[in-house]
């Protein structure tokens, strides 16, 4: 059928609209946990997850199978979800919040949106890995390490702590991510241990020494792999993940600095919303995240440290968890975090 041009155009536009309407008519497709395909039919809790599907799906499946409840999961950036929870207030559809960064869950707790967790959850995790007021618990731990390109740098050359990276020897060779929350947590811990003046001095020296600012840990890791920079301050597991993807020839290795703060532990954590009307189920879900089975998934798949008592870390994690300090300040006080931002802005790091 040959139509004159305007009609053809109109027809095509109409078809496009029709396609949209058909898609609407059939119902859009959704797929919630990102994990298994056999979802239980009974409706269960709603989870706001700062972790991507691959990093939590199987843990959700474990709970769904045990509880025979369907968990609905919203995935987005942790900070965006925290801001959303604050705007939603009591009207939030969420029952549980899983935060990738400690600051975000502290912000939500501070806004009075998290309920106190029962003893039988809190007791599963050592005291240093949870909120002193019991509003959230840590699920996994991530160590702040120095990553380096082992084709260019020998481990013996690396300084005992990031304080040593201000040496002229490292000029323009170091990557960091001042805008990422993990770096900011680290700076907050530095302030707690060494005071604001020493911390500011270090930040300024890093900037003067040409530290390259990246948006996040992944971009630092990739820049080291490409030889763009030689060392970087990142979370340990990003490198472990790349090695398991790329094979043993991957040029980036990690070094747990023994001096200074050591390789500070940062927590991913979970809390239950005060507004939830499914609290018993939400608590059961949190317990499930801390079960041996789920914890084993976290440590073996993403190479994070499991935080529940009695769970062994993945064999690839050669530095024992007891050797990695948790700063008091990383059990976050938001005001401290804002002080950190100020300090980083003043020193030109941010």
């Amino acid at each position: 059928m040959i139509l004159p041009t305007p009609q053809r155009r109109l027809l095509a536009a109409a078809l496009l609209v029709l396609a949209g309407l058909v898609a609407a008519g059939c119902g859009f497709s959704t797929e919630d946990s990102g994990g298994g395909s056999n979802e239980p039919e009974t409706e269960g809790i709603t989870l706001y997850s700062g972790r991507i599907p691959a990093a939590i799906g199987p843990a959700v499946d474990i709970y769904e199978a045990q509880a025979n409840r369907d968990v609905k999961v919203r995935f987005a950036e942790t900070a965006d979800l925290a801001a959303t929870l604050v705007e939603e207030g009591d009207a939030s559809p969420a029952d549980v919040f899983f935060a990738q960064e400690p600051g975000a869950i502290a912000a939500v707790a501070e806004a009075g949106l998290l309920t106190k967790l029962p003893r039988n959850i809190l007791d599963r995790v050592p005291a240093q890995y949870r909120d002193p007021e019991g509003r959230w618990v840590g699920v996994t731990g991530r160590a702040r390490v120095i990553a380096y390109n082992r084709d260019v740098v020998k481990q013996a050359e690396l300084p005992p702590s990031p304080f040593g990276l201000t040496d002229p020897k490292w000029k323009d060779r170091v990557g960091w991510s001042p805008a990422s929350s993990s770096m900011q947590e680290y700076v907050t811990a530095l302030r707690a241990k060494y005071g604001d003046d020493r911390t500011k001095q270090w930040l300024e020296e890093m900037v003067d020494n040409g530290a390259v600012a990246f948006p996040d840990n992944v971009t630092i890791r990739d820049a080291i792999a490409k030889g763009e920079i030689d060392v970087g301050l990142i979370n340990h597991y990003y490198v472990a993940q790349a090695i398991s993807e790329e094979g043993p020839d991957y040029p980036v290795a990690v070094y747990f600095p023994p001096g200074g703060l050591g390789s500070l532990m940062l927590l991913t954590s979970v809390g239950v919303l005060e507004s939830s009307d499914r609290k018993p189920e939400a608590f059961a879900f949190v317990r499930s995240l801390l079960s041996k089975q789920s914890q084993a998934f976290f440590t073996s798949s993403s190479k994070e440290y499991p935080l529940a008592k009695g769970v062994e870390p993945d064999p690839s994690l050669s530095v024992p968890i007891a050797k990695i300090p948790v700063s008091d300040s990383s059990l976050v006080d938001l005001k401290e975090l804002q002080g950190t931002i100020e300090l980083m802005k003043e020193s030109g790091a941010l």
Partner: protein
Amino acid sequence: MAAARRAPLGLLALGALIGAAAVLPAAYLVVVIAGDFSAALETAFSSRALETLLRTAALTAAVVIASVAIALPLGWLTVRTDLPGRRLWTVLCTLPLVIPSYVGAYLLVAALGPNGLLQEALGVDRLPSIYGFTGAWLVLTLFTYPLALIPLRATLRRIDPQLEDAARAMGRSPLEVFRTVVLPQLWPVLAAGSLLVALFTISDFGAVSILRFQSFTAEIYVEYQSSFDRVAAAALGAVLVVAMLVLLLASSRVRGARAVHRLGPGTLRPTQPYRLGRWKWPALIFCSLIVLVAFVLPVGVLIYWASKGISTGSTSLNTIAALGGNSLLIAVWAAVLGAVAALVVAALAVRYPSRTTRLVERLAHGGYALPGILVALGLVFFSTRAVPALYQTIALLVFAITIHYLPLAIGPIASSLVQLSPRIEEAARGMGRGPAEVFRTITIPLARGGMMAGAALVFLHAMKELTVTLILSPIGFKTLATDIWTQTTYGFYEASAIPALVLLAVAAIPVYLLSEQGAAPS
């Protein structure tokens, strides 16, 4: 000009409704700022905010100038000359708009960054750094110039050929004709296109964060992601709204001062395309260069990644089809609603200029200068309080995306209305037709080019929208863009390449349709 004609009441009411809807994100900023006014004031007027604003203004100006410098020759070559393969060039030159800016930035770093593909190819130790201003400028120009090109082409097609023919008949050179006859008629649409490019640039987060340029939007994200300070974020958002109003004012000045109507009847007489002659080769080289850098290179990298991704078997065909369907669903609805709403706003502003209709137009721009996170949070705030039943439904998501991108459609439609002499409508009124009938039978058909362009722009942006979708979609609802996000978060670029390519393929449909109507008769 018919001075101070009264707008039909129905149209005005509809416009007011649209304006009120579009201003919701800005209204949310006001609510949050009112919560702690002094802190907000301190943030908004800090020297840091000023520095960031100036830095962002410099970037915006540079991106706008470069975009116009690319769009103007491309538009003219593909509409008004006998350039071989005009249709193909049109599609290829418009498609870069579909590449999300964060993908574009990753690709640029992969290609031109330290130890990237170019450095390897040249075998040199070091290239000039692409980070900071240069990289942000390059990426934003390459992936947003189509915002100026699309409305420009729609206008070029409808330019009255009589003036040009007369000038040519009087022996003026093509360049002179362009400068003295064509260019003056293009000011309104260039202003509208520049506005879109400028607003996109100031609201972008993806490219500037990867290319390490501390723009105003990046500053807003620092407030959310680091300090969890919603008041400071809202205060900075309010500064963006003010900046947007200034740009809008400048743009509408140009549009008002330079209005040129067609003299002839409603139907177009085909123009004779210019013969390029020996200029054919330079023209082809110019088009090829743009297409190479803004389209072929990025798509090449994507295909390379995708081939690696397929071999590791990451994404199933069914999943991709479902994601594509979801993206299409949102984008088509947003495009249709956006074009209709924009027609109302543009018709009011152009045909019935008054204080009220100008206000409606400004309100309707409320959501575009803001980064997605502020638009999303604004709707979270209002919908959980006013219409909880709609919260996190498709309807609300489409609504949010429509108001976010509404200005994209207003510009081209307003330009096409400016070009269309109101006398035609007046004549119809004089013949006894009612205002609604005139609107339906005269205004809409003649503004169709602008409406198609506007709808396509909204469609393309809705296809790649991320932040609003993540927060406001029904739970479990995934699109191609959210899938790309999921994959790139942990650096799985190979896996993200497949949805990115599908996104390009789907978005090519409206671009193709547009190009068809843009082809000059031969």
